[in-house]
């Protein structure tokens, strides 16, 4: 008996290759987590053996380590520095190719043909990040055709988290660890079995072709227990009930000076963030100056140029830039897009070279300064 639509199927971990093959047959290029230079990054995968079997990640502020456990777990690594962002909002996207002509120039729009890409291993926080980027690039006043093209071809196979990192706080941001929407298929790895469920018509189509046995209530219950335990085990959390106003009100809080003293303005947090969307447009002419590439690249509000207008920098100090970033993420983002700019993935904590932890900074910033403390601060 094969599973009916909307139900859970069971795929022995040893048979995951069948899913990859089914996707390949449908013309998808498959992208999955692979071990590379001591981290996990998205790469094209052809075989299950390309996936990080037996590996686990340990993440702490300013620390990322992979360890080999010797197990047969396929999805033991929660995540690497990349969210789904680079797959849809490309780090560098050629917008136009412009050629000099005898009476001026001619601009060609560099919109790619949609490529069918299936990404396996996205986490609930990644899906939440993708939904936010969709809101920004597709559902605002303008629909971005470059993002739309990449997004159109994307088939998402999510994995429910059954292990939390020390840096995870998705439970308190209400984005995970269970993937509830925004996926085509979702897997939960329970010992040597994968519980599999479809979340879209395309996903149901792929799932239907696999002729899987339906999962028992017992296995479904066991998977739910693992996900719930993962949520409960999260040691970091963020109380966002008083946002956005509490953070707007904290504009002059002395804590900004404190965090600015630690921040290197390296921009790592914005590069690994699943939702940060700033970009800069660059012009790269060839040596003969006959042709030029007009492309956008990820930018960061931590760079000196970000707030520059002629003769003046709106945000000249690191304090200004850290405040810009955090206030955008947790306050102005809500006014702009009706949602928080943070999904609780914890990447900015792990990949910050000095381990700045926004789950510490935000509560500190929203704690009113005692008058005596502030006087000491002024006098000191």
């Amino acid at each position, binding site marked *: 008996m094969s599973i009916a639509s909307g139900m859970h199927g069971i795929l022995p971990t040893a048979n995951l290759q069948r899913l990859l093959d089914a996707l390949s047959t449908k013309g998808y290029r498959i992208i999955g987590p692979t071990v590379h230079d001591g981290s996990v990054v998205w790469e094209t995968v052809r075989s299950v053996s390309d996936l990080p079997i037996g590996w686990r990640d340990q993440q702490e502020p300013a620390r990322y380590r992979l360890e080999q456990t010797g197990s047969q777990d396929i999805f033991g690594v929660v995540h690497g520095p990349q969210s789904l962002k680079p797959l849809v909002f490309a780090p560098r996207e050629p917008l136009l190719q*412009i050629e000099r002509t005898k009476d001026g120039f*001619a*601009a060609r*729009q560099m919109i790619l043909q949609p490529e069918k890409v299936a990404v396996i291993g996205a986490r609930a926080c990644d899906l939440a990040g993708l939904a936010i980027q969709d809101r920004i690039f597709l559902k605002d006043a303008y629909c971005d055709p470059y993002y739309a093209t990449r997004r159109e071809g994307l088939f998402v196979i999510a994995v429910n988290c059954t292990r939390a990192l020390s840096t995870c706080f998705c439970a308190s941001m209400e984005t995970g660890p269970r993937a509830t929407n925004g996926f085509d298929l979702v897997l939960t790895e329970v010992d040597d079995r994968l519980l599999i469920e479809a979340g879209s018509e395309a996903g149901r189509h792929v799932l239907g072709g696999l002729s899987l046995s339906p999962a028992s209530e017992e296995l479904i219950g066991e998977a739910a227990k693992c996900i719930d335990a993962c949520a409960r085990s999260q040691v970091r959390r963020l109380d966002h009930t008083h946002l956005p106003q509490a953070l707007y009100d904290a504009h002059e809080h002395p804590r900004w000076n404190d965090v600015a003293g630690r921040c290197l303005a390296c921009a790592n947090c914005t590069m690994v963030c699943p939702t940060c969307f700033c*970009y800069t447009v660059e012009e790269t*002419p060839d040596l003969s100056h006959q042709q030029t590439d*007009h492309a956008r690249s990820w930018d960061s509000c931590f760079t000196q140029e970000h707030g520059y207008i002629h003769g003046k920098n709106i*945000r000249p100090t690191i304090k200004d830039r850290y405040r810009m970033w955090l206030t955008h993420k947790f306050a102005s983002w809500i006014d702009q897009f009706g949602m928080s700019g943070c999904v609780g993935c914890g990447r900015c904590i792990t990949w910050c070279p000095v381990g700045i932890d926004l789950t510490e900074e935000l509560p500190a910033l929203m704690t009113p300064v005692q008058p005596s403390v502030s006087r000491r601060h002024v006098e000191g």
Partner: protein
Amino acid sequence: MVNAYAIHPATIVEKIREAEDINTYRLQLVDEQVRRGFCFKAGQFNMVYLFGVGEVAISIVSDPDEPELLDHTIRSVGRITTAVAGLQPGDVLGIRGPFGQGWPLDQAHGCDVVIVTGGLGCAPVVGAIEYIFRRRAQYGAIKILHGVKTPHDLLYRERFDAWRRSPDTEVLLTSDQPDKSWSYRIGVVTELFELVSIDPPKSIVLMCGPEIMMRLGVPILMRRGIPATAIYVSLERHMECGIGLCGHCQMGPYFVCKDGPVMRYDRVAQWLGRAGV
């Protein structure tokens, strides 16, 4: 799907020297279909593109009823604007736009219009002034208060003279670093407020220039009885996309390129002058 990144070639039909480092470029879109489809409001801006160099946000200063020719007044201050200064009539720039929110000129029907500008800040508002003069009967009294640092910074001198000669119009110019050639007022633009009569309930204020001028000037106007909701300011921020995506122009919850550059004062009051915003 409309590609907001598409750049359209536009020929420089005329280059008008306004000052040593400031020129107005009169541009005509090359593609006839694009030219016919182009319409804008006074106060909106274009991303002006120079081949191989890049784009810069410049307000459109010509009349919205004549969108076939688009005037942009550009001061040479950066990499792109300096390179543009070397161009001559017949050369080709690119245009992407129009973007942003313009001046509330429909809402100003029947109102006295008080225009307060400083330095090159007068450029984005010149289009609005010309618009009003061409539809003079629809508006009440016009007061134009313009401040410059030095006499050398005064643009559009002939226009100011022409406006001054128009009925029911006051034009006051001031310089805070004048020389012997200066025959107008001396001081900063906010000092001109006490020299004009303002009828608060029927006045609307259009303001453009340095933010310090807005921060110091608006409280004076409000003390004269003009509500913050009748004061509009045009803001300047780093802009690369014009569509609220690249992130640079944010001011508090706003994207100045998309929600502005013209914004009602009460909406931006709490953000103006905040350090790092």
